[in-house]
């Protein structure tokens, strides 16, 4: 009889513990990207089979005509106005993009 009562109490405790294994309420549901799906049918096989598609025929291409030499402009050096103006423009654009993003975030 005592054994029966003890077994019953233990079973009850186990039931209570099992029931309290709920989802923790303080977990963050962080949105995450879905896992990439592996498409098994697209994976390459190690050896080609008899039913594989035949090698593509490479058509004989005609000899390409020489491309006329373009008028090459000399690259701007650090002594050139154009180089530094371009650098300034790139930096200012980058800064302005960040400031616009911050503007949206700050809710102005």
């Amino acid at each position, binding site marked *: 009889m005592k054994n029966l009562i003890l077994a019953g109490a233990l079973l009850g405790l186990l039931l209570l513990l099992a029931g309290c294994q709920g989802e923790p*309420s303080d977990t*963050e549901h962080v949105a995450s990207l879905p896992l990439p799906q592996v498409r098994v049918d697209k994976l390459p096989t190690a050896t080609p089979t008899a039913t594989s598609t035949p090698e593509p025929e490479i058509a004989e291409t005609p000899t390409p005509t020489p491309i006329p030499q373009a008028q090459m402009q000399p690259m701007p050096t650090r002594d050139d106005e154009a180089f530094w103006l371009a650098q300034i423009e790139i930096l*200012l654009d980058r800064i302005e993009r*960040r400031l616009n993003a911050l503007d949206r975030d700050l809710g102005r």
Partner: protein
Amino acid sequence: MRKFKLLSMIVLLFTLMAVSVAEISPAIAKTPEPARPIPGLGKMTDTELRNAWLKRRAMYDSQSEVIRDAYRTAEAFEAYIEVMRKKHDDAYPLEVAVSKYYGYIREAELARVEANRIFTHNAGFNTNYYILDHQLAGQSIVDVHGNLKQVHFILFEAHRELRKDLNAWLRRGRD
């Protein structure tokens, strides 16, 4: 008879426990966080407060990048002025513009000291940015948001003025 009574009581006890566990545990697991009011922010849950804090930290880092790029821009301007001097061109308006620009950057950096202090203090949050004190955390967010806006205004003005001065210089060259 006594055994039967005891057994029936045990079965009844199990049934009661199973029913109560089935009712209570989902309620514990799925209780939504309470949204508590914060002056200046309205009602927010702890998760929302944490996300808002992390967003402000990201904005602060973004402003750090802007200031870093601003220094690079000022250096590029100085190199450009040097090129113009070698060509015996009068680059005085650009020198004034760069000097003004440096002034704005310094002003922005001084204003950021307060935001840096607030983030370092991290009042209301623990080291993983979880909420320790709801009201204190909300106040930290309100304070740092005000400072970020102030720095943003200074940087915005700095770049607007620099663009204006550069465009005026380039137009002068074409006139």
